């Protein structure tokens, strides 16, 4: 008996009990679509984390001033300024694994336009900063090295700041704003970044040259950097080497003894990204395994219905054996029946799962990512469920004694 014939016989048997076949199918459909939808949402969240960190710069390392210890009470990171401008220079020039480095000084300040005012974060930095964070401009341009050297009153605005000060869809390039009452010329607007994973608005920011920042917004000691240093590693895949080199360089420069505590700290953003991704990965796994349980239940449904079917058709099996069906023919027939159920269920489940994921993401604004191979995996997996749960009933049918099967009432 060839496979096509086996398939025809199986299809006939399934169509004979349409309602029952449909309900069995439903179990698999729900299971597979749940897996697909959950994986799509989970992967979407994971991808979003990835995107967030890559927009922050995947090769980003942050160096901060160290803690301050006095009279036994230890301050937190940055409680004492230890990083100097010459440290920055050394980082920029001495380390080959450092692509660029930029100082970041930040404070909150009141902004004023002709129309409105807004309190936001002001960053004093150098043009390299935009490179490190791979931020591009929506309009206008970044302030230049000349602006830094001349301490010009120029500013680059984030989209949120533009919205608050000028209203949406306004191009403020060339307009003047006041930061803490100091007039600044807007040279550019950043492209919209959206929110970070933890709700920080990347667009609610204004950037000015660090020299201007020090002169006009918030001063500080001449020698020390009242903020942190952002470093872009040359090789994004080997940020830990850059991290090590930075640490060695700064220990040397700060004359820190072999075992003594460092007076600065170095953070690798890739590590943070990995930790975040680990979290969402666990979350995805959790969702998928819950969904897989429903697929398992669907499989049990198949087994149940196949067992009923075998019992119901005992005489038919006996007759088929009497006219020449070998045990393997009977096995194949029932196995193909359960396989047909599970594969059709799997395909429908994939379709429904994808639409459900789209619907959910539209409704709740979740990001979505459907890995193309998940479709194949889902169908193969449901086929596996079909074989696994179809095997026992099929074997039971194949093992029937033709004499007793024919006599079965």
């Amino acid at each position, binding site marked *: 008996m060839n496979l096509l*014939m086996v398939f025809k*016989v199986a299809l006939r048997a399934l169509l004979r009990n349409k309602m029952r076949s449909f309900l069995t199918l439903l179990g698999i459909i729900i299971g597979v679509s749940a897996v697909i939808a959950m994986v799509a949402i989970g992967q979407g969240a994971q991808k979003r984390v990835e995107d967030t960190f890559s927009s922050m710069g995947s090769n980003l390392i942050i160096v901060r001033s160290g803690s301050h210890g006095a009279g036994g009470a230890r301050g937190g990171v940055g409680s004492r300024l230890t990083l100097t401008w010459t440290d920055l220079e050394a980082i920029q020039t001495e380390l080959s694994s450092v692509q660029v480095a930029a100082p970041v000084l930040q404070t909150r300040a009141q902004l004023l336009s002709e129309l409105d005012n807004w309190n936001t974060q002001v960053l004093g930095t150098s043009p390299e900063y935009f490179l490190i964070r791979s931020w591009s401009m929506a309009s206008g341009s970044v302030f230049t090295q000349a602006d830094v050297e001349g301490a010009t009153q120029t500013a680059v605005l984030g989209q949120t700041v533009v919205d608050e000060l000028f209203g949406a869809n306004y191009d403020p390039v060339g307009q003047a704003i006041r930061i803490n009452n100091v007039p600044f010329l807007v040279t550019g607007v950043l492209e919209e970044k959206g929110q970070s994973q933890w709700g920080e608005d990347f667009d609610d920011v204004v950037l000015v040259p660090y020299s201007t920042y020090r002169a006009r917004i918030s001063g500080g000691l001449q020698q020390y950097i009242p903020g942190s240093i952002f470093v872009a590693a040359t090789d994004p895949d080997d940020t830990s080497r850059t991290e090590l080199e930075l640490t060695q360089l700064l220990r040397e420069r700060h004359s820190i003894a072999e075992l003594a505590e460092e007076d600065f700290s170095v953070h690798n953003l890739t590590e943070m990204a990995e930790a975040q991704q680990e979290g969402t990965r666990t979350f995805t796994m959790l969702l998928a395994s819950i969904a897989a349980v429903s697929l398992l239940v669907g499989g049990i449904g198949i087994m149940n219905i196949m067992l009923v079917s075998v019992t119901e058709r005992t005489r038919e099996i*006996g*007759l*088929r054996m*009497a*006219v020449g*069906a*070998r045990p393997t023919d009977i096995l194949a027939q029932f196995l193909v029946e359960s396989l047909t159920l599970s594969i059709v269920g799997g395909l429908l489940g994939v379709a429904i799962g994808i639409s459900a994921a789209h619907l959910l993401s539209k409704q709740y604004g979740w990001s979505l990512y459907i890995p193309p191979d998940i479709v194949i995996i889902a169908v193969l997996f449901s086929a596996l469920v079909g074989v696994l749960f179809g095997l026992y009933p099929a074997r039971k049918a194949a093992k029937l004694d033709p*004499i007793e099967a024919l006599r079965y009432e």
Partner: protein
Amino acid sequence: MTTNGTLVALDKVTRLYRMGDVEVQALRQVSTTIQEGEFVAVMGSSGSGKSTLMNILGCLDRPTSGRYLLWERDVSRLGRADLAEIRNQTLGFVFQNFNLLARTSALENVELPLIYGGLASRKRHRRATEALQRVGLGDRMDHHPNQLSGGQQQRVAIARAIVSDPRLILADEPTGNLDSRTTAEIMGLFAELNQAKMTIVLVTHEVDVAAYASRILWMKDGQVVLDQPHTPSTPLVLSHPDGDQDPGRPEPPSPPDRSTDGSIASLAAQQAHT
């Protein structure tokens, strides 16, 4: 009767069943042969072993000991898959309750053995059509079993039995569920097939049915106690079964009283009494 070869040879075939601690001997050292072209009626009360004999002849069961040669092939030790192939190629079955697949047309029911025989669709269709025409159902091929009368259903079953052109047809009380007029029709069909050189073994309780056969086997307690030739379509007269008077064994059926008609009918009546 033409006997141009031995089709079935049973040599001391025994079949034991174990029911808990009790061992039941369904067949005790049965030895007999059936020639090609014979029409054998197997009779006997229930529990006499005639069903077991049919199961073994039909390769649905295997003897516990002894040998069964079917068409010169020893089938007594074959596996399930090989037996299935022999049933498919060499044997045809007709059952008391027809055993047709419901919601399946007569034609497809008849095609069933050919599907397992691996025939191509067009060939299957042609041979099934021929078989149905042969049993007089050429105009009912698309009907489902529930649209057919009992006699017609049994004709479909007979068509299914002959469609693969088997060597031997085994019929287990094929008229048990039919009225007397339909019984005569069906038995006429069997007689026709036998005249076309088909070998038939038939189990029956009814004397009228057995009367169509060319040879009668009477079974009791797992043994053949009577084996006599018979001219088909004549009243059945039973001779005294010689050579089976072993005192250690259970009594064979008491020979019919010669003072009465001596037919197998009286034997059957006695059996019903005991």
